[in-house]
């Protein structure tokens, strides 16, 4: 066997390697998983309380951190086990329960302002991430229960501690009962 008969075979193999390599490289750059759409899909599974218990400033930043592979799927106490499982399924990771270091899952709660004690300082208004508190300086504030996500972010700014978290769905009913009795 001499070099002349070997040469075309080597040439063809080398040519194929170069062509396929180029095609794969082009496809890889072309069909890369869109990081934005992954963030969107993760974000869609989060409860959007914007509470920051995951140590990120909101649900979207947490979704971005998960997409970057920087945060685990176990940091969302408001979402609870269902969210943790859905996130793990979406990402193909091993499902893990919510890490108690980030908080515990409780039944849905909403903020309730004790209107007798509210001094109308308006400090809680910008703190509410979903604009669920109605009020103005020197006027009493109140929480729109149906919009409140129970994130607790209005608690620290209140100077008179007049905001409490109550189980969702109950305050309106108990108030109705008290006025009916009065």
């Amino acid at each position, binding site marked *: 066997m001499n070099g002349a008969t070997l040469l075309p075979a080597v040439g063809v193999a080398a040519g194929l390697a170069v062509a396929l390599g180029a095609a794969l490289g082009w496809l890889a750059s072309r069909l890369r998983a869109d990081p934005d759409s992954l963030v969107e899909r993760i974000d869609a599974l*989060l*409860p*959007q309380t914007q509470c920051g218990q995951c140590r990120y400033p909101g649900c979207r930043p947490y979704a971005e951190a998960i997409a970057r592979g920087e945060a685990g799927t176990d940091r969302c106490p408001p979402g609870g086990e269902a969210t943790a499982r859905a996130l793990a399924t979406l990402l193909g990771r091993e499902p893990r329960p919510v890490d108690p270091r980030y908080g515990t899952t409780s039944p849905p709660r909403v903020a309730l302002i004790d209107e007798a004690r509210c001094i109308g300082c308006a400090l809680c208004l910008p703190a509410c*991430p*979903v*604009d669920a508190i109605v009020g103005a300086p020197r006027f009493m504030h109140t929480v729109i229960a149906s*919009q409140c*996500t129970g994130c607790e972010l209005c608690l620290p700014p209140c100077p008179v501690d007049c905001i409490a978290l109550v189980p969702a769905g109950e305050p309106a009913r108990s108030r109705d009962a008290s006025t*009916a009795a009065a």
Partner: protein
Amino acid sequence: MNARPALRGGLRVDSHKARPLEQPIATLPPPAFAVLALDQGSGEPAQAIVTPGTPVRVGTPIAIGRGAAADLHSPVSGTVSAVESRPTVAGTGPCVVVANDGGNERDSGLAPLDWITLDPAVLVERLASGGLAGLGGAAFPTAGKLALARAAGVEWLLVNGAECEPWICCDDALMRERAAEVVLGTRVLRAACGAARATIALEDDKPEARAVLASALAASGDDRIELVVLPAVYPLGAEGLLIAAVTGREVPRGALPPEVGVLCQNVGTAAGVARLVTEGLPLLSRVVTVTGGGVRRPMNLEARIGTPVADLVAACGGYDELRPPVRLVAGGSLTGRALASDAVAVTKGLNCVLVATAADLPGRGAEMPCIRCGDCATTCPIGLLPQQLHRAAMADDAAALERFGLADCIECGCCDYVCPSGIPLTARFHAARERQQLHEAGRRRAAEAKQRYERHRRRLDEQVEAERRAFEEARRRARGDGAGGA
């Protein structure tokens, strides 16, 4: 009729309708206190327009319906004594309680209708203010259904006299005794919805009702109404299945019957419409079957809406001490719901009170694992695969539940009935549905919260930006002034 079977699957169950049908419908005296649940069975409460102390007469409106709730009228004359939460057929809910003064005085605003000359749109409005609702059990406002049907241009009105549950026979009794009212109501409903033809459907185990209805139809001289007799198979009385059996049209998933050109109404509703037209009376009473081994004299009673179930049982001779009842069921033994007590009151949707002894309810041993025999799939009238649905429900697998058609399940209970392992399939499907609804609601809330959060962020950013610009503007001006001064 064509050769196509009326129903795929289904059950032929032993009927227990003979005893209540031995006697005519008895009219119960009005109760001392009428307890009117604002949710009459459709799952949505009406809005009360009376307060304690309001004087009312028979037929005075006491609550206005919205959406899936019909208007509600006082069935007695007297005063409203309370508007409060009480045990109801559906659990616990707001009720209007009217203390009966025994006067039985009618509200002055009630007058018969000249339905033949009345514009159909006005007729529908009058039916709405008459509080007519589906008496088959769903209690959906009749006027709402009619308005939908008119908008969709239905051509076929189906009046449902198929009563497939093994214990319920209130519609049978009604058709036997008030066939003329049923026929008149059918004519009015046909005129109101604009359909070209109407069919009254009932099963072949009701020959008496069929004969009486046929002669009433002949007497009315209305040749656009026909009578169709179907085999007595459970659950053929379910709206979608009856429509498929009579018209051959299948109502698609998530759609309503008007979308296939059909409107379905119950025979009891038709009789109620007839009363409204001839006497001007809104829907104040309904026929309820009180039956079961635990009651002395099972019978059909015409009771005012708001009559406590205890009064109904007392009118039937009371509870039988020799055969103590184990459960009170609203509705039949297959799809009924247990009642908390006999203090709950009759609603528009309550067709039967089953005072069940242990022997009356389908027995169910301890639950065993699914052996995948497929009996449930054979009997499912919708053609679902309950065994697959059950696996998905146990795993809480939303995608699989969707794929196997949980949304199409009518919760008829056929699969439960035939399951040799005694698995409470229907209850599991119902629970899975509730979980899904909860999940959906959470999703919606989250989407809304996200939108609000984004707006909040944008507003805060704009504020910061505006402050920065104002600051720079001020600085520039201060510098400019300084330059001018120098």
